[in-house]
């Protein structure tokens, strides 16, 4: 503890003295933690609460569940209550049935005698407990695995195709001198000016005419060639010395072999950055899948999550659990690859 304190109070001066600007700085940072992390922590905590606990106002920080007890002669476990008033004050009783303001209860130790208790006199016995059934129910009742598969399939295939197609183009633009190279480069820059959002209508027609409407391929293919990807890889490949290619050509290596046995491995860092970005874009993609996919069984996780929240029958408990599972992969990727993501996003300007 002392170590942490001295760690946190170390300052620029290094003499253990906090300047007022240091106080402001750390105050701001602590507010930042609260405001940025707080909502996510609250979401995760809430996702482990039972539906009854979620309805409670004001909410409690930790998830609680009512203590239950198995009593002979009853199929279901019975809920336990502390009795704080009336004739049976001080006893722990289990609830059999409730009629209006009066409840029929029994003592688990002596289950034969039925007692009548006013509900104003009881207090539920609760303990901290995770409602894991919120999660397991997703797999049983909702088609969660299907959505997970759709999202994964789209993400993996789109990323693979994008990496291959973009790196081929980047190779041609960085290592060959041919008529029209500048024109192609300008065309690639030109596509930067056309975000998907402004060509939705014709894109919809083309996808439809190609028979890809309501198919996962309709989500994968239209976004496979990205100007950002071509640029990022080209800028990297330019730095690979041409002598390596010449040496390989002397050894009679075919151009394709040079590309995938020499250039691709040497571009691994740039490809890794692009791969991470592509995975994030595809996993989080929303508008285009929303337009292309109209049948529930083709929904991605994002679409499923959005459509569930609109349904009256959906309970918060399942919605929250599904939200947590949807953000989990990205959270894991972020924890392990934070540095690459940061540099990647900073160098490409987002998308």
């Amino acid at each position: 503890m002392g170590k942490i304190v001295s760690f946190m109070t170390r300052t620029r001066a290094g003499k253990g003295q906090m300047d007022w600007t240091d106080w402001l700085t750390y105050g701001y940072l602590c507010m930042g933690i609260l405001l940025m992390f707080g909502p996510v922590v609250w979401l995760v905590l809430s996702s482990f609460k039972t539906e009854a606990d979620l309805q409670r106002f004001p909410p409690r920080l930790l998830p609680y569940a009512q203590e239950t007890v198995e009593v002979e002669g009853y199929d279901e476990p019975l809920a336990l209550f502390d009795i704080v008033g009336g004739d049976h004050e001080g006893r722990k009783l289990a609830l059999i049935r409730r009629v209006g303001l009066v409840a029929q209860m029994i003592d688990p130790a002596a289950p034969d005698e039925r007692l009548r208790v006013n509900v104003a006199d009881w207090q539920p016995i609760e303990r901290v407990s995770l409602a894991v059934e919120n999660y397991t129910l997703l797999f049983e009742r909702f088609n969660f695995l299907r959505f997970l598969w759709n999202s994964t399939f789209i993400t993996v295939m789109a990323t693979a195709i994008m990496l291959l197609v973009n790196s081929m183009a980047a190779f041609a633009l960085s290592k060959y001198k041919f008529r029209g190279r500048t024109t192609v480069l300008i065309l690639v820059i030109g596509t930067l000016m056309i975000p998907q959002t402004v060509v939705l209508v014709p894109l919809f027609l083309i996808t439809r005419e190609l028979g890809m409407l309501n198919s996962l391929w309709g989500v994968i293919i239209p976004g496979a060639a990205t100007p950002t990807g071509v640029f990022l890889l080209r800028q990297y490949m330019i730095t690979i010395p041409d002598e390596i290619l010449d040496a390989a050509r002397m050894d009679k290596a075919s151009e394709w072999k040079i590309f995938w046995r020499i250039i691709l491995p040497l571009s691994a860092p740039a490809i890794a950055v692009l791969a991470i970005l592509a995975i994030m874009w595809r996993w989080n993609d929303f508008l285009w899948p929303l337009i292309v996919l109209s049948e529930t069984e083709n929904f991605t996780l994002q679409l499923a999550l959005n459509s569930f929240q609109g349904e009256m029958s959906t309970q918060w408990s399942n919605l929250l659990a599904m939200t947590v599972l949807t953000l989990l992969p990205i959270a894991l990727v972020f924890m392990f690859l934070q540095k690459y993501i940061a540099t990647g996003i900073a160098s490409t300007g987002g998308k």
Partner: protein
Amino acid sequence: MYSTVAPVMRIIEIPFAFVQSRLGIQRLAWLFLAPNLILFGVFAFLPIILNFLYALTGGDQVLLNDRPFVGGANFQSLANCENVFDPNSCERDLFWRAIWNSVWFVVLQVGLMVGFSLLTALVLNRDIRARGFFRGVFFFPVLLSPVVVALIWKWILQRNGLLNAGLEVMGYERVLWLLDRHWAFAWSVFLSVWAHMGFYTLILLAGLQAIPRDVYEAALMDRASPWRTFRKITLPLLAPTMLVVLVLALIKGVQTFDEIYAFTGGGPGSATTFIIQYIYQTGFAGAPRLFGLAAAASILLALVLALLTAVQLWANRRNVDG
């Protein structure tokens, strides 16, 4: 990994080897470019042309052959207003509502975003402990999906949510945040800043760290006050980065859709309906599907974005050269 990729690569090699033996090495470049150019052509350039054809035709059919030519009627319909500042006087009132919503949203969101990003970047640029961790704290929402962001905040803002609990503890009435026009709009701006701030912070932090240390040492020697140092050194040297951030934020702000659509659905009423949602609703969500109107609106949007992108490329280039 390698063993699954290798056979694929060997199959692709066959046409490449063939073309190489026929046409020579330099012209092989076109074969490498082909898949990418075909995709660009079909899914980026062709749509631009078709977009104009859609905008000039009417009806609710998808196929262009079935659509009657209407000339500029779609554009006229969008622009048919007695007073553009009053959407109620317009034929397409939702379009103008969406435009004014977008304008207000972009002004507020970009202003707050740039302000808070700069503040955060300045704080992170100080000599603090665990900078990597704190950078991550501000950055991670950028990676969350729009729907997840929307649900996280919906859960906090709901009737029995955390925020209302806090209000009640302090003795105030509960508020139905997302059912009130003004609150829903304000929270949309907040949500958007919360989700994207880290991205701009990152860029500004990189810009701050690129400012040479000796400039500050010189200022220290001259006994310049911190405020003066900030105004006379940091701000001018950061200006190119600020410009990039500003334009990027504008480009993205204008295209805001996902998280707000999942957050409020554009409501209550049309209080948080922005321009992309108008295009989506007009062309895809409602019946009849007015593709022509949606295309016309997206062409207007494209003009704004092309202008902003041109500024962005210019700013980037100036950044690289300087």
